[in-house]
């Protein structure tokens, strides 16, 4: 059943300080940016929240700032903004690719990186890339700002570290991965316009015949977007061989907690995640 739109309220402060003040006064407000998630719920009659705060037109949240050592993306940066940015394409290609397959062009024109993260779907496209790039996130409220590692942002299924009066302000990336080998693959029902059954991002540095650094990030493998610490530890400081690849696969399966749902099964997700990890590790052979 469609929602009755008269039951919903939406305010649109003109500035970030005004938006933060509105949230401080009424922490029951739900921020809405491009609407590519919440407006779907509205149409489907399953939008439980009733009071919304539009942050989509806050120019303070829509920026990509580049310094010699870092790139900072405002939470209101759209996927189209990300795809167009040459420094992101060059330094963070996994993020650029994830942006390119997040919905359609129309969705990318409206959907924001911040919304993709705060919506906190375990299947979201950008989190695996952000996890392997060791992103940090800056949260802001009328009380001030704080920055934490992105890997600590997702607390449990659909629960994040955001306090009710806080907004995600920015996603911060360090430009230090140019020597790393990288990998991102999404498995969905179709080649495009599909939500992930499972996705895996990997970043590794191979020095003197051994893996000296590795990060593995996954979507739809646990209740939140997640780093795969056991699989990382299994291959860290090891040469890449058939034996260590098998050990990494086995370790990944010990930490995978996928579910059966409308898009796939737990068994399929776990098996494919291990195959994706092997596919990446084989690129490091020789």
């Amino acid at each position, binding site marked *: 059943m469609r929602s009755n*739109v*008269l039951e*919903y*309220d*939406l*305010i*649109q402060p003109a500035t970030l300080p005004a938006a933060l003040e509105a949230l401080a006064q009424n922490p029951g407000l739900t921020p*809405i940016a*491009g*609407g*590519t998630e919440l*407006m*779907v719920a*509205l*149409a*489907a009659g399953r939008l439980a929240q009733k009071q*919304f705060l*539009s942050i*989509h*037109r806050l120019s303070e949240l829509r920026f990509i700032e580049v310094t010699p050592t870092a790139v900072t993306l405002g939470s209101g940066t759209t996927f*189209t903004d990300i795809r167009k940015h040459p420094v992101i394409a060059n330094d963070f290609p996994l993020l650029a690719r994830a942006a390119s397959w997040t*919905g*359609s*062009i*129309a*969705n990318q*024109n*409206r959907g924001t990186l911040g919304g993709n993260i705060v919506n906190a779907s375990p299947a979201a496209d950008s989190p695996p890339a952000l996890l392997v790039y060791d992103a940090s996130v800056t949260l802001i409220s009328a009380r001030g700002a704080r920055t934490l590692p992105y890997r600590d942002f997702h607390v449990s299924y659909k629960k994040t570290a955001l306090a009710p009066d806080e907004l995600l302000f920015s996603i911060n990336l360090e430009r230090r991965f140019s020597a790393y080998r990288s990998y991102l693959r999404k498995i969905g029902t179709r080649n*495009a*316009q599909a939500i992930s059954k499972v996705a895996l991002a990997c970043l590794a540095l191979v020095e003197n015949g051994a893996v000296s650094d590795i990060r593995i990030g996954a979507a739809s493998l646990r209740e939140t977007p997640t780093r795969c610490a056991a699989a990382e530890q299994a291959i860290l400081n090891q040469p890449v061989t058939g034996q260590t690849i098998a050990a990494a696969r086995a370790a990944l399966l010990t930490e995978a907690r996928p579910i059966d749902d409308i898009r796939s099964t737990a068994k399929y997700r776990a098996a494919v995640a291990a195959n994706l990890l092997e596919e990446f590790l084989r690129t490091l052979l020789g």
Partner: protein
Amino acid sequence: MTSITLTVNRETHTITAPPMKRLLDVLREDLHLTGAKEGCGEGECGSCSVLMNGELVNSCLVPILQCEGASIITIEGIAHLAAEGEELHPIQQCFLEHGGAQCGICTPGMILATHHLLQKHPHPTLEQIQEGLAGNLCRCTGYMRIFEAVQQAADSAPHERRT
């Protein structure tokens, strides 16, 4: 209820609506512009596509309050972008000539997505056409005639388009 002023097809309108009302519903119910269609209502099918400040968007996913001061172009406004003396925009003409429109439900969205694509890529590759239209579903044509129509629009009229 909120009062919102926006420009649709170069005409300024002030409407009174609930702030979360979808742009699609304002276009169809308040402004009686029924060219944008509701297919899925969840941003998958593209039949409600319009241009908002020059960007392709799904009007079913835009709360009207976010349109304050915005410029919207719907399929009804596309013909206005045609060259002097032409009844149809070249993209519309090419869809007509190539059988790119059959039942017509997807056609307004297809044409707006094509317009947006050709603004970004005046001479698109087949892959760019496919990606540019990937958010617009068609159950009739099998897409090939649509791709041909877009290719023809790109080849034949690169200088006639205006924003």
